[in-house]
């Protein structure tokens, strides 16, 4: 006996019919589409302009409207760019302050909790200085730049709050446990070579993102670099940052905290660019290795002399534009034709490999044109050689001290807008290499784990 489920004649007929139906439908659809397209073309030629929905005026040229035939929605997918919408600032009372973290020249930072989501964030209250120009431009630039910057190595701005006082303005940012400066102060040993590489690479990636988006940070320093317990590094404090202006617009030379300020800024240039950030990156690189700031000058003159004693003196060959800088003429540099001017003082970094020294000395080139860009740095062989950068996940964790009381070493703040330019007056640098002789002898022998 044949199975009950076997195909019989009737089934076959039924299937054939279905197939036919399908084909017919397809054909009809195609025909309809072609007709619609033809109609669309025709209307396009005759119609005065595309269909309209709402009119504001009864101007006479509105009257020649041709009714639009029903045509099928084109199934081409158009790209839509979205940027959300806007809504008023929320009130600070949505957050509960947990503890104060720091007070700086820019304002107060505290750790707080969103009472609705329980998320822990950092609140940064901007100091308002209304006397001159209304809402401070530095805060506006910081907000504008942070709103547009989305990068794993740049701190993210979540929203802006308003307070009872109409002048109050609070930035809500993601909370990170450490800043590099206080972290290094609390550590007994400097970072290991592999850790320095991870940190430097993340730092330069953040800087690269900024520079490719025409943003100068202008205040890179260890206290502005945050680190979380998962080994992620993020740039913060964009109070000095700005977009690269149109060419030849004079920029203020009062930028970058003294210890991280490049020689051309110290010498009073008003026409600088992203190279000033790369100098700061060099200073931070050195600081990560030595666990202390490498160029901690007391004032601008002292800063310059520290720079020259570390990096050597500028010459007509290495930095042709040097003598055209505003403050360069007042400097008296030692010029000894018999004595070759010493170059970069590598004796200060006895544990750095040759390629490490090469990268550091390139970042700390006196001539801004010789400094590598962030992209150049990322492809430097220093990152390729042993020890390899430590994966961020493997990074050691440290007790977070954000909020606890502790003694701080004094370090200079970023220059204030509107301050008087101190400038570098007549100075004699003749004897800055006197101490170099002893240093050259080497730092003895030490074992160090990578």
């Amino acid at each position, binding site marked *: 006996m044949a199975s009950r489920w076997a195909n019989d004649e009737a089934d076959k007929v039924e299937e054939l019919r279905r197939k036919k139906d399908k084909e017919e439908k397809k054909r009809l659809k195609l025909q309809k589409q072609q007709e619609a397209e033809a109609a669309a073309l025709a209307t396009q030629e005759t119609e005065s302009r595309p269909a309209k929905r709402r*009119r504001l005026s009864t*101007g006479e040229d509105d009257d020649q409207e041709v009714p639009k035939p029903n045509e099928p929605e084109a199934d081409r997918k158009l790209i839509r760019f979205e940027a959300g919408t*806007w809504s008023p600032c929320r009130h600070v009372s949505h957050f509960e302050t947990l503890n104060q973290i720091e007070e700086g020249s820019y304002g107060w930072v505290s750790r707080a909790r969103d009472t609705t989501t329980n998320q822990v964030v950092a609140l940064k209250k901007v100091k308002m200085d209304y006397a001159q120009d209304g809402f401070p431009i530095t805060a506006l630039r910081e907000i504008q730049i942070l709103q547009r910057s989305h990068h794993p190595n740049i701190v993210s701005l979540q929203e802006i709050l308003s307070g009872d006082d109409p002048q109050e303005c609070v930035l809500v940012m993601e909370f990170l446990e450490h800043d590099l400066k206080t972290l290094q102060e609390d550590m007994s040993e400097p970072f290991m070579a592999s850790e320095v590489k991870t940190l430097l690479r993340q730092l330069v990636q953040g800087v690269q993102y900024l520079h490719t988006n025409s943003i100068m940070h202008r205040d890179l320093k260890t206290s502005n670099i945050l680190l979380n317990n998962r080994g992620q590094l993020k740039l913060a404090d964009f109070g000095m940052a700005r977009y690269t202006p149109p060419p030849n617009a004079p920029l203020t030379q009062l930028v970058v905290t003294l210890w991280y300020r490049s020689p051309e800024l110290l010498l009073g240039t008003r026409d600088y660019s992203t190279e000033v950030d790369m100098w700061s990156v060099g200073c931070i690189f050195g600081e990560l290795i030595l666990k202390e700031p490498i160029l901690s000058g007391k004032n601008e003159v002292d800063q310059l002399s520290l720079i020259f004693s570390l990096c050597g003196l500028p010459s007509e060959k290495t930095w042709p534009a040097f003598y055209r800088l505003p403050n360069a003429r007042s400097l008296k540099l030692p010029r000894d034709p018999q004595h070759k001017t010493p170059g970069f003082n590598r004796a200060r970094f006895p544990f750095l490999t040759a390629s490490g020294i090469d990268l550091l000395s390139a970042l700390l080139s006196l001539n801004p044109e010789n400094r590598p860009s962030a992209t150049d740095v990322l492809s430097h062989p220093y990152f390729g050689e042993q020890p390899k950068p430590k994966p961020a996940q493997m990074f050691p964790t440290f007790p977070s001290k954000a909020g606890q009381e502790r003694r701080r070493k004094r370090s200079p703040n970023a220059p204030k807008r509107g301050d008087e330019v101190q400038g570098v007056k007549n100075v004699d640098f003749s004897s800055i290499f006197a101490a170099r002789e002893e240093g050259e002898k080497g730092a003895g022998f030490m074992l160090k784990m990578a």
Partner: protein
Amino acid sequence: MRPSPLANPLATVAHLETSASQLDSIPPDLEDSIRFAGASLTQAAGVLLRLPQEVIAQGIVLFQRFYLGPPGGSLTEYGAEQVSAASLYLTAKLSAYPKSARSVVNVYAYLSNLPTSFYDAESLQKRGLEKEYFVSEGTYERRRSTLFTTEQVILRTLGFNTHVQLPYTLCITYLQALDTFSHPRAPELAKRAIAYLNTALLSPQCLYLTHQPSALATAAIYLAAREVGIKMPECEWWEVFDTDREMLGFLCVGMLSLEGWVSEEKGRWAGRSVPVSVEGVAEEMRRRKEETGLDDDMQRAVNG
């Protein structure tokens, strides 16, 4: 989703449904008139301050965003003139061409002395009597502090979202992409397209708040090409620029209808200026009430 830097934050349905001014019983037609007058005031002030059109356009967009929706500003609380001045001051400050508070106050004092709300190039060129628009030190202090507080209010109302992307450069790029610059009358085409973009900026429909720059640029090119008589591709070329036919049509009507609307407005406000201050708005409301009161009386008289 991460917001695209190429796009603008747009008005939502809730924004467009009603506004703080309407909730304060300002009639929508008066709101439209003031919206247009405020935008043209910003444009005129920007020209007198010698600001680039990009900065002026950003100022106008912030001005329009401020009054939108129930959480926005109300005309009974913030006059269009002070908001216009603060928007322009704010955008100029963020641009590479900052202007001093003194310059802004001076320019607005000069403009408020002109007898009309419908500015043209000629009337802006005219030099009036300096005496009439001189701002004394005391007045300046007062206006400057208003400027600063209004700036703060704008920032808070917009949630510090000052990002404004404009269609001007996009428009030129599209014209290049359409390969129109080989045409002998291409400069005319480009000029007309830019002119349409400037027109759309003043529209009381707030086209810049409801449509992305790509759609605005495409509609401007469509209209300009029709007007100048330069042939565009036979296909639906606007879809290449992410604009569908519906949107294109809507924007074209919006842009074209402004001229007729403005000439009607001119007739309606003949001999007086559109109120751009809180007091002016209150007075206009009183006047309208009296008029309708009179109408009601007459109606009653007729009926009675």
